[in-house]
């Protein structure tokens, strides 16, 4: 087993060195930073799916929430907003939402006053409707006012690292709500519910122009370490400045990943991990042993979401632009699943390996496909059939196909991943 770990990670290092030799150090640094962030997200999914057996197809939503958090915390303060009547109007919105929440709370407890059955259902529906109307009547003018007077809310102007942490907290909070409403569902239903909630989150974040600037996008988002422009101002040439700045970023991300890996590995081998595996493998038996199945599942759902939120925040702050419409299910949900399936669900090192490896395959299949197509095109032109049109846009799409093929092959021939879950037995 140890041999396998050494082989797999040695192959990964060889791949990285090979990429650095052919594509240059600056590109490799960028690849490694992004791959590490994806590895962190894959570890988050490993907590949910590998430890707890919980389907989460709403990873995209968590990444968007994390990205929003880092944008909100670290972007400079928008004074035009704070000096306008905007904050006051938002206060009214909160008040309206609170009134609605109280109304709904009472409606759900209406059976204490002797209203039951269909009548109770009707009361609940009416209460939700009234709450919605109250909320909309406050929200719409406030949103219009803010977008017309000050553009958007702006940020808080705090350090980026705080933004990453806030990304984790906010994603954990959303994860708690998502888990609270949907963890009663099993397997396929849970997958569909989480993907539905993620799509709702995506639509909301994309259209809340007053809060996130929506499709107008926010940039630049600062780095926790000096950026290339800083090194360039101090006299470094462009390539060196990118290597230095990205290297610094990579160091910070690597520290975050290693801390997360250390913590979740400790948790996994400890009693907590054993309990989670027991719940995953047989929740009825675990429940009969006195374990709080739903509560524990909620716990892992939140933990996984926290890692995903931090990963999303890191990605957004590295790219430097928050563009809600750039988040796509294939690039931000399905690819994480491919990482975990290939790496090995239930194995933290498998998730780490899968995240790094699959992201590299994803990024490298584009230039590889491009060179393949160029060769093919040259051949077909020499045969008199004409060249292949639009090679560049087609090569970008090749990677989606490659990912699908990888997951199909992996499920068929290595269903437990390259580094399968390792269960220690004391007998």
């Amino acid at each position, binding site marked *: 087993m140890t041999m396998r770990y050494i082989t797999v990670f040695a192959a990964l290092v060889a791949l990285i060195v090979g990429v650095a030799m052919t594509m240059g150090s600056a590109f490799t640094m960028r690849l490694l930073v992004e791959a590490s962030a994806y590895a962190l997200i894959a570890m988050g999914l490993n907590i949910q799916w590998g430890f707890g057996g919980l*389907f989460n197809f709403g990873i995209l939503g968590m990444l968007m929430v994390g990205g929003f958090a880092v944008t909100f915390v670290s972007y400079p303060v928008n004074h035009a907003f704070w000096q306008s009547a905007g904050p006051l109007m938002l206060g009214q919105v909160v008040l309206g939402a609170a009134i609605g929440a109280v109304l709904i709370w009472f409606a759900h407890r209406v059976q204490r006053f002797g209203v039951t059955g269909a009548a109770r259902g009707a009361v609940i529906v009416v209460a939700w409707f009234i709450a919605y109307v109250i909320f909309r009547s406050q929200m719409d003018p406030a949103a219009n006012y803010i977008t017309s007077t000050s553009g958007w809310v702006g940020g808080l102007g705090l350090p980026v690292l705080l933004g990453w942490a806030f990304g984790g907290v906010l994603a954990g909070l959303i994860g708690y709500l998502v888990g609270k*409403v*949907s963890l*009663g*569902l*099993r*397997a*396929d*239903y849970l*997958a*569909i*519910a989480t*993907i*539905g*909630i993620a*799509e*709702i989150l995506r*639509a*909301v974040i*994309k*259209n809340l122009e007053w809060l996130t600037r929506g499709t107008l996008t926010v940039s630049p988002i600062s780095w926790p370490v000096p950026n290339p422009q800083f090194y360039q101002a101090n006299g470094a040439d462009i390539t060196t400045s990118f290597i230095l700045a990205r290297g610094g970023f990579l160091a910070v991300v690597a520290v975050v990943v290693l801390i997360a890996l250390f913590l979740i590995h400790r948790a996994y081998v400890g009693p907590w991990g054993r309990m989670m595996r027991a719940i995953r493998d047989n929740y009825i038996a675990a429940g009969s042993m006195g374990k709080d199945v739903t509560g524990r599942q909620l716990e892992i759902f939140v933990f996984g979401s926290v890692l995903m939120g931090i990963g999303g925040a890191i990605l957004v702050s590295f790219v430097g632009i928050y563009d809600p419409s750039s988040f796509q*299910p*294939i690039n931000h949900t*399905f690819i994480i*699943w*491919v990482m975990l*399936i290939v790496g090995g669900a239930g194995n933290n090192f498998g998730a780490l390996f899968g995240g790094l490896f699959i992201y590299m395959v994803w990024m490298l299949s584009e230039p590889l496909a491009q060179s393949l197509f160029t060769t093919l095109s040259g051949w077909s032109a020499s045969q008199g059939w004409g060249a292949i049109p*639009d090679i560049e*846009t*087609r090569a970008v*799409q*090749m*990677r*989606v*196909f*490659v*990912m*699908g*093929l*990888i*997951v*199909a092959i992996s*499920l*068929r021939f290595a*269903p437990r991943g390259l580094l399968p879950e390792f269960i220690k037995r004391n007998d």
Partner: protein
Amino acid sequence: MNDFIFFFNQAIIGGVVLGSVYALGAVGVTLIFGILRFAHFAHGDMMTMGAFIAFVLAGAVAAMGIAFPLPTGFIVVPFAMVIAAVFALGIDKGFYAPLRAHGAKPVTLLIASIGVTMMIQGLIRLIFGVGTYSFFETQPKKLIRIDLPFEGVTRPISFSEPQLLLVLSTIVAVVALHYFLTRSRLGKGMRAMADNPDLAKVSGINTRLVVRVTWVIAGALACLAGTMLALDVSLKPDLAFNIVLPIFAAAILGGLGHAYGAIAGGFVLGFAETLAVFNWAVVLRPFRDALPEWIEIPNTLSLVQSEYKLTVAFVILVVVLLVRPTGIFKGAST
């Protein structure tokens, strides 16, 4: 009266058209779930694939210089459905059948269907690029207008020819499916297997054949739905990927594994979406004089903004999953 015709054109026709697409898609999803017990995520991409098959066929027919009074894309649908059914069988043979033979859990099949989704999407974009195509580049898209014989009515009821064909072919497909499921031996076998696979097997039903027939029906219906949707709007690689979730919502709303439920769920969702974004102020305007003065009709009075149209389906999906996960009609569960 004109305002009501506006309401009819916008909300009712829109709801029926959208509902038909959802219903056709949801029937396929629900049949696969009933027989094979997994949520087949690649169904949306099978719809897109079917639409592209029809597009290629229509292009070939048009290149031969044959013209029809109906849209060429509609004429070639039966042939496209046959090809799509063969593709569906091939996908099952290539990716799902080996996993089933290894005794994989439904969850693994669900993940495999994600892989198939990505492969189909990648291939479609690889071959056709990311651009938008139209079935109506060489022939016009006909509009049908019906003037109403009432006094003071200037606005006609209007819809396009593809929309009419979509609704008609949905009705034909649903009736045919109904007779297949209730009258034919195979259809009865399918329903038996959906109810209890083991019992169906020991009763001598050829379950392998049933699985194959399920894929044929699902592939053909997906092709029909995709082509009709592409005829109504336009053809692009993410045509159906964006509506696969509303389709799942429709299937769950009707109860997964329940063919009639899926049809009902599709129409409920179609109407819910169009009614939720409809601007109700238009309908209220004729009563402006009858209302007391202190009530002012705002310019826009829709339940949700139109940006959130698709979100309506997801909200309904989540609410149904929480309140009644078995759907309107009691569906199969895992």
